[in-house]
Structures are given as structure tokens and as C-alpha cells.
């Protein structure tokens, strides 16, 4: 090892001012008389300074709650879940009724007449019908025995997505809604679709994160035969409304991987994202999704074509977006 090599290896310690005084003096003397090591030192010092520009990331507040809960300590702040009713009797009634909302028996299964309408209100119970299941314990329900009607915006927590055997078409959704519930069924079961849609569109009432839900939706609904317009629509709403760019990126990417039949319903939202989303990665995913649609034979309307044209020539646009937009246009004109 040459003298220069030895000195250079000690330079990071010089940056942290943790070199012992003798070696510090030696290194500085060497830097002064060796131009190559002087350049090396200046480069390292500039790199070290630049690295200081990496900002601190704020810790999500929910982690502390989860940690304290795991060790049986009180939550650090007032619970974000607002109790439906204060009185115990009414709360029990609400619990029973909330479950009835989910477990209404097979009467409703498959009878989808209109999309779920979610009002920004507290969960309300219209009537209480005899429940077929006890709510006292964690239960597993087949999807075809569950009504997917969700009223108000009940808090859904501890969601996990289950696919115990990837080789069969059975999936499961496990969550807490006053009691712990697991709904199992096929991805194409409307109950399953509606539950997933609710979870995708109501992340503020759900844990863990929506991002995980999207990962799971992508894995499940990208499979041939599982694509569902209602899931695509929910993803479109996420793409349009979510404040977190990583979530929007994932939503656009998932739409890209869903079949054309599902994603074509969200074409307008993809175009809107391509036009207006401030994050280039979202725009990249949106233009890729549109490219997939064009490749699969979906007819693009004139507004979509106009947007693609505009993007293809927009100097300030990300170069990948421009190239991809041009590619889509050329495939359309072929």
C-alpha cells in the first residue's frame, strides 16, 4: 500500500474529525504536498457535504401506536376510532347490526344492482335483522353468505390478504370490524370485490396501508380471468385522489397490469393522470397503461390522442413519457 493509499483510506475519518491528532496532522501535511490527494480530499469533502442534503424523513405517527399497543401500553393520543355509541347496550346493538351489514345471508349475494355508495358519515344502522352468527369470536365466512353492503364508513382494521394456495382460485380477506371477520371466496365474487373496493377507497379507516392492499390486488386481479371493472374503478379513484405519490404510482401500475376490459373503464383517469399528475413516475405508469390498452386493441378516443400528441412534443416533459406517448400514437396510426 503506497503512502497515498494509506492517507486516502483515513480521509473519511478526517471528515468525521475522529482521526487521532498525530494521523490527522500527517494526513493534512500529505494533502498539502500531494496534488492528487488534495483533489481526492476536496472531492470527498464535497461529497460528504452534498450527502448532508438528504433530509430527515418524518416517522409516521401510527407506528408508535402499534408499538405501544403490542406491549400493552396506552396509546399516546386519543383514539382516532370514534365509538358509534357510548352506552354499552347500544354499542352491542351496533356491533350486532354492523355485522348484520356484512353477514346478511345469501339473499344479497350476487345481487349487485348498483355500486357501493360511500357517504362521508359515521356508520349508521337502519335495521337489525336476526344474525346467523355470533359476534363474540373471530369467525370465517364464505363470501357467498356475506352481503357486501357497507353503510357509512365503519373502521376496518388489521386487514390481511390471504392466498394460502396460489394454485387454486380461493382467496381471503381478514379484518376487524367490531369483531374479527374473515371472508373467503373467489376474486370474482362480488362480495369480495366490494370489500376490496371499500378498502381501496377508504384508506383512512383502514390499517395496514393502502399500498399493501394495492400490492395484493395487483397480484390477484392481474391474473387472467380475475380482472374486474369495479376494482379498476376503485384503483382509478385512488390514482385520482390519493395524496401519496407512491400509492398513485402503484395504482397506475396495477391498472397497467389489469386486463384491457377492466382498465378501459379508467381510460379517462389515466389520461387525466398523464396530463396533470405532478409526479413523473405516475405519468410514466399512466402512459404505459394507455400503451397497453392501445396494444390490446382498445380504441382510444380523440381526447386521449390529443393528450398523447401534446405529451409527445412537450419539451418540459420527462423524456420517457414523450417516447412512450409517441409509441402509442404510432401504434394507433398503423
Amino acid at each position, binding site marked *: 500500500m503506497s503512502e497515498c493509499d494509506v492517507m*486516502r*483510506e483515513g*480521509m*473519511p*475519518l478526517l471528515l*468525521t474529525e*475522529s482521526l487521532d491528532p498525530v494521523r490527522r496532522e500527517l494526513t493534512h501535511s500529505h494533502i498539502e504536498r500531494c496534488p492528487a490527494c488534495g483533489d481526492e480530499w476536496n*472531492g*470527498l469533502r*464535497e*461529497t*460528504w457535504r*452534498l*450527502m*448532508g*442534503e*438528504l*433530509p*430527515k*424523513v*418524518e*416517522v*409516521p405517527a*401510527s*407506528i*408508535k401506536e*402499534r*408499538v*405501544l399497543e*403490542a*406491549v*400493552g*401500553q396506552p396509546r*399516546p393520543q386519543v383514539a382516532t376510532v370514534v365509538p358509534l355509541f357510548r352506552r354499552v347496550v347500544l354499542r352491542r346493538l351496533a356491533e350486532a347490526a354492523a355485522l348484520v351489514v356484512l353477514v346478511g345471508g345469501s339473499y344479497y349475494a350476487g345481487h349487485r344492482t348498483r355500486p357501493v355508495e360511500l357517504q362521508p358519515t359515521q356508520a349508521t344502522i337502519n335495521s337489525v335483522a336476526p344474525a346467523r352468527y355470533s359476534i363474540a369470536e373471530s369467525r370465517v365466512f364464505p363470501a357467498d353468505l356475506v352481503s357486501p353492503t357497507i353503510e357509512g364508513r365503519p373502521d376496518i382494521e388489521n386487514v390481511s390478504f390471504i392466498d394460502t394456495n396460489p394454485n387454486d382460485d380461493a382467496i381471503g380477506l381478514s379484518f376487524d370490524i367490531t369483531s374479527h371477520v374473515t371472508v373467503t371466496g373467489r376474486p370474482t365474487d362480488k362480495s369480495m370485490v366490494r370489500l376490496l373496493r371499500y378498502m381501496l377507497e377508504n384508506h383512512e379507516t383502514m390499517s395496514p*396501508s393502502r*399500498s*399493501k392492499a394495492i400490492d395484493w390486488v395487483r397480484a390477484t386481479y392481474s391474473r387472467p380471468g380475475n380482472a374486474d371493472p369495479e376494482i379498476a374503478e376503485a384503483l382509478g379513484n385512488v390514482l385520482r385522489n390519493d395524496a401519496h*405519490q*407512491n400509492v398513485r*404510482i*402503484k395504482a397506475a401500475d396495477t391498472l397497467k397490469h389489469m386486463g384491457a376490459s377492466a382498465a378501459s373503464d379508467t381510460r379517462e383517469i389515466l389520461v387525466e393522470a398523464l396530463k396533470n399528475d405532478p*409526479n*413523473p*413516475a405516475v405519468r*410514466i405508469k399512466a402512459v404505459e397503461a394507455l400503451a397497453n390498452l392501445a396494444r390490446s386493441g382498445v380504441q382510444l378516443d380523440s381526447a386521449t390522442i390529443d393528450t398523447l400528441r401534446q405529451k409527445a412534443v412537450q419539451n418540459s416533459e*420527462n*423524456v*420517457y413519457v414523450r417516447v412512450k406517448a409517441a409509441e402509442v400514437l404510432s401504434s394507433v396510426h398503423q
Partner: protein
Amino acid sequence: MKHLSDQELMAIVQAGEFSPASEIYDRYSSRIYNFAYRFLKNSEAAEDATQEVFVKMLRHANQFHGDAKLSTWLFSITANWCRDYLRKADNKAKEAEDVLVTLPAPAEHSPERNLERRENERRIQKALGALTPEQREAILLSRYQGLSYAEIAQISGCSEGAVKTRVFRAMETLKKALAVDAGGGDRCLNAMS
């Protein structure tokens, strides 16, 4: 609890009382989360890491010996968690997902300065991604957590000499990467690749 030292707080936890959990969390969560986030380049994994590190620390408090710093022990648990995470094949592919995360810049800066800072952040995160996990671990602990080589050696389970080499090589790689990347190009596209 605020007036108690780390060792005193841990002694209470070791006696089976978890009431210092909140104070310990407040002292270290930001450092742990930031380390995991920059190491894994994935905010969700960083959340999981932070949660699991603190729960493990509290539940296995008896494994903490008062002769070491609590920060060193916590970073050891975190680094182990992150290494395990990266070892899982599925997670490697996810590594790049969060590269484009944008963080709020200080409001007092001009828009140009904010843009420059954001650009620098992307460049640095990308350059960190070019390091080996061992080098990244060493440089994150040294540059951003201010740990000594001796502490990093303890956390990484290697000699101080190995830490010195890792930090030096990491700095060489970063110097080149940041100098080259400063030349321009479509950085956003690079970050995605």
C-alpha cells in the same frame, strides 16, 4: 421519564414494566426509521422495521447489557432486520419502488433552492442505491447517525478495519456517482431504472 438515562429506562423495562416504552420510542424512533428507510429505500418496509425493532427491544430487554449504548443495540437489531429483509428474494425487486419519494422541503427556501435540494436528494438516494448493502449500512451509520467505527463494527459484526474499508469504498463510489450524475440527463428516468 424524560430525566432518566437510557440505562435507567431499560432497567425499568427489564424489571417487566413497559411504561418507559413511549419515552424510549420518542428518543430513537426517528433515527431508526430514517436508517431503515434509507437502507431499504422502501417506506413500508421501514415502518415494519421500526415497529418490529421497538417491540423486539422491549420484549427482549433482558438481552441488553448496560455496558453498551442503547443506540448501538437498537441499530444492531435494525440492521439485522434490514439484512434479513433484503435477503428475501421477493424484497429485492421492491427495492427501487420508493426511489422517487419526495419529502417536504423547508418552507423558508426559495423554489429554486427547494428544487435543487429535491434533485440532490434524488441523486444521493440513487447513489446510495449503487452501494453494496454492507457499504450502505456502514456509510448510513457513519454519515447520518454519527456512529464511530467501533460501534459500526459491533452492529455489523465485523472488524473496525473492515468498517474503515467499507466506508472508504462507499465514499469513493458516492464521489464518482454524484460527480457523474451532476452532469445532467434525465434523472427521474434514471431513478426509475
